[in-house]
């Protein structure tokens, strides 16, 4: 039996005005377990707290009930008081007789009556309280960033800057991501490479950062502070540490006709290649599907020209086991496939391109060396039609488009239109839009400049059909404001394709037990207050994997994610919330219902041997809760039919005791 002390607070007249505090402390004196009961003007004051501490000593109290304001106000205060008095801080219960009693009831009789009942409920609960100690777990002081685009790069740099080692895992042969493929960036029009490549070099030179390029994460175990990750380093058939990136092999390789992924297949690359000049790591990679040496064992030219001797045709995929304290997901996005949008003739005409292809076409390092030409005949296009919202905000059929707004298209289309008119003033540029959305800093000014200074023709309405005819593209569209159907003979049609999360995100989310929305974007722990944390502790989100984002937004989110990681890695130990679920394995059926409803993946199962009453042993599957991961919501407790799963601090018996006390 507990020895409970009851402390009724007047809160000046806040409580004492509507509640007869004397009567309350008197009435609660006779409750089971109560050995001491008193009241005082301000329990939270130093004098009040001292009173509690003294009473604990004098009456050998094991539990404390404070009848006062909301626990959301002073629960922490009184827990500290209890701790200072040598009690476990979780042996304190608060009866909320201010916000939920004296302040909402006018009549002193009813107020007092209710205060007594609330006090009784708190006493009933504290009688069943048990000392709780928050679990502690060590923190591996190293972070993993999955994805080496601008989001991953920025996050890694920021974490390394704080002194913690970081690994970047990038599935492509080089880091840089989508930003490396861009030409200029809105709204300032500085060139993407000029601002990105110095950062890539910083990453390469930072001794806190390791880059695993051409690699992927294949398994994640563990929990916050203690992740164990398996990284698969794909064989690139070139020794990374020896290759100097001189490019001799690339030049000599006879298998030159392979679609160049970096230029979205608009030109070719050899079987051995370096994606682009500023690649990091600047190391060649052999495409095993294109290399005749790897396919047929004949050629070996690259090996002959490599003076460093870096070529290794026998290289195998390598698996590394690494430990991390925190994981940042920065898997980014891709434009969706245009295959299903036959109306725009994307698959029929080379001159219907996506905006990312347009980006490569205008990039000085692109397939046309920055000259804006028609991919079909290399001629200069005189009429260009940009179509916005291709596949965005399209909820009619999920296989075709995406229901959300892709957010970045309005601005890059304005950029494309403006740059085209700037470089080639003889070009007519149309932009068909549903809405123009420009809510960023200096964004609307930018769009207006495209219209007002550069004479881009913005037309409210959608393109319904594109038909290739001769060397022209017949564009049929509607102008909703003029209520006209337009027919434009275009030379080039550019589709602002919707963006979607990278395909690798879904399997990764499963490995991380991080949740995703129906569109495969990672969900944040709280849409407003925890935008860079995933609900899974220790997993953070950076960039477009969480939702469509432009570069400035991505970089700021990357920094935010980094600061959260740093905050975590700074700690030597993690102390959890002690009010976590725990499973009584003697009663557990191992049915997995609890794991199904756990939003944090905190529950795992193991086979355990049990001694049966008849002295035989039986192996049963039982649940165990990882207290470092559990957040204490209690969803599992209700789903457990045998009641094996219970929540510390809010146990079944405790809540039932409160119910009973109230209903007495």
């Amino acid at each position, binding site marked *: 039996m507990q020895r409970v002390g009851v402390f009724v607070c007047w809160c000046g007249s806040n409580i004492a005005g509507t509640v007869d505090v004397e009567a309350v402390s008197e009435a609660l004196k006779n409750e089971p377990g109560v050995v001491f009961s008193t009241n005082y003007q301000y329990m939270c004051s130093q004098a009040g707290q001292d009173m509690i501490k003294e009473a604990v000593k004098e009456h050998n109290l094991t539990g404390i009930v404070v009848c006062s304001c909301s626990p959301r106000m002073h629960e922490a205060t009184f827990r500290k008081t209890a701790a200072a008095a040598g009690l476990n801080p979780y042996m304190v219960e608060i009866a*909320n007789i201010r916000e939920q009693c004296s302040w909402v009831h006018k009549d002193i009789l009813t107020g007092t009556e209710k205060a007594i009942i609330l006090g009784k409920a708190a006493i009933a609960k504290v009688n069943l309280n048990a000392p709780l100690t928050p679990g502690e777990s060590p923190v591996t002081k190293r972070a993993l960033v999955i994805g080496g685009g601008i989001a991953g790069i920025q996050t890694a740099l920021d974490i390394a800057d704080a002194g913690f080692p970081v690994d970047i895992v990038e599935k492509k042969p080089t880091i840089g991501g989508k930003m490396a493929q861009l030409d200029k960036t809105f709204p300032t029009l500085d060139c993407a490479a000029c601002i990105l490549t110095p950062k890539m070099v910083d990453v390469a030179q930072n001794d806190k950062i390791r880059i695993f390029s051409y690699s992927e994460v294949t398994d994640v175990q563990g929990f916050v502070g203690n992740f164990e990750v398996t990284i698969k380093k794909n064989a690139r058939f070139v020794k990374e540490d020896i290759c100097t990136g001189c490019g001799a092999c690339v030049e000599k390789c006879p298998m030159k006709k392979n679609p160049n992924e970096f230029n979205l297949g608009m030109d070719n690359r050899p079987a051995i290649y370096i994606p682009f000049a500023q690649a990091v790591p600047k190391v060649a990679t052999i495409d095993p599907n294109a290399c005749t040496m790897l396919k047929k064992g004949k050629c070996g030219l690259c090996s002959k020209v490599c003076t460093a001797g870096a070529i290794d045709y026998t290289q195998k995929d390598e698996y590394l086991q690494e430990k991390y304290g925190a994981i940042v997901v920065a898997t980014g996005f891709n434009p969706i496939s245009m295959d299903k949008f036959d109306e725009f003739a994307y698959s029929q005409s080379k001159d219907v391109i996506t905006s990312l292809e347009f980006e490569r076409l205008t990039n000085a390092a692109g397939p046309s060396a920055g000259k804006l030409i028609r991919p079909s005949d290399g001629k200069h296009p005189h009429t260009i039609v940009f179509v916005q919202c291709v596949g965005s905000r399209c909820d009619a059929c999920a296989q075709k488009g995406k229901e959300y707004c892709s957010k970045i298209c309005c601005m890059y289309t304005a950029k494309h239109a403006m740059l085209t008119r700037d470089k080639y003033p003889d070009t007519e540029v149309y932009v068909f839009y549903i809405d123009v959305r420009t809510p960023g800093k200096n964004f609307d000014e930018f769009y207006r400049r495209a219209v007002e200074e550069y004479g881009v023709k913005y037309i409210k309405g959608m393109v319904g059909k594109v038909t290739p005819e001769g060397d022209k593209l017949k564009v049929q569209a509607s102008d909703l404001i003029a209520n006209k159907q337009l027919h434009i003979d275009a030379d080039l049609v550019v589709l602002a394709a919707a963006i979607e999360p990278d395909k690798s995100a879904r399997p990764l989310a499963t490995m991380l037990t991080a949740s995703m929305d129906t569109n495969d974007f990672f969900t944040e722990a709280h849409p407003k207050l925890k935008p860079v944390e995933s609900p899974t502790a220790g997993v953070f989100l950076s960039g477009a994997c969480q939702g469509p984002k432009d570069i400035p937004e991505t970089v700021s989110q990357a920094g935010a994610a980094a600061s959260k990681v740093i905050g975590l890695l700074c700690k030597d130990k993690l102390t959890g919330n002690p009010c976590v679920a725990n499973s009584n394995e003697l009663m557990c059926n191992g049915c997995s219902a609890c794991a199904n409803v756990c939003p944090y993946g905190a529950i795992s199962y193991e086979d355990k041997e049990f001694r049966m009453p008849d002295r035989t042993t039986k192996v049963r599957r039982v649940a165990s809760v990882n207290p470092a991961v559990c957040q204490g*919501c*209690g969803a599992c407790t209700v789903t457990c039919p045998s009641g094996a799963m219970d929540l510390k601090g809010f146990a079944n018996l405790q809540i039932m005791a409160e119910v009973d006390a109230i209903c007495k």
Partner: protein
Amino acid sequence: MQVNEYKPLIVAFCCNWCSYAGADLAGNNRLNYPADVKIIRVPCSCRVNPMFVLRAFQRGADGVIICGCHPGDCHYTSGNYYTRRRMAALFSMLDYLGIEKERTRVEWVSAAEGAKFAATMNDFVETVTALGENKRLEDLRCKK
């Protein structure tokens, strides 16, 4: 005040993050509601076991209300979605057993909705008062 005026006994389960805070806000704003409502704090509405609800009725509660964050706003992301399914099933069953359906309720009250909390409680108490005592689930032998 009449001496014999019937006063119902209402048990309200409130989630710590939204509805309990909403109840606190009702207090801060001095929004009155009947003292018949007694609040039990739970971390999340999904902590409320149907057994607690039946227990309350068995012990003589006249109405049970469960308050949680609005769907989509759960502190634990999905808890109230489970509450919604569990309580829909339970309430439908109680109704099937002939228990007055007005005695049970689930309301979503955010931390900013002090006024909604008070209004909800006023309304619920009024509804339950009109129904009178819970005779169908109460177990007299549980009463002292």
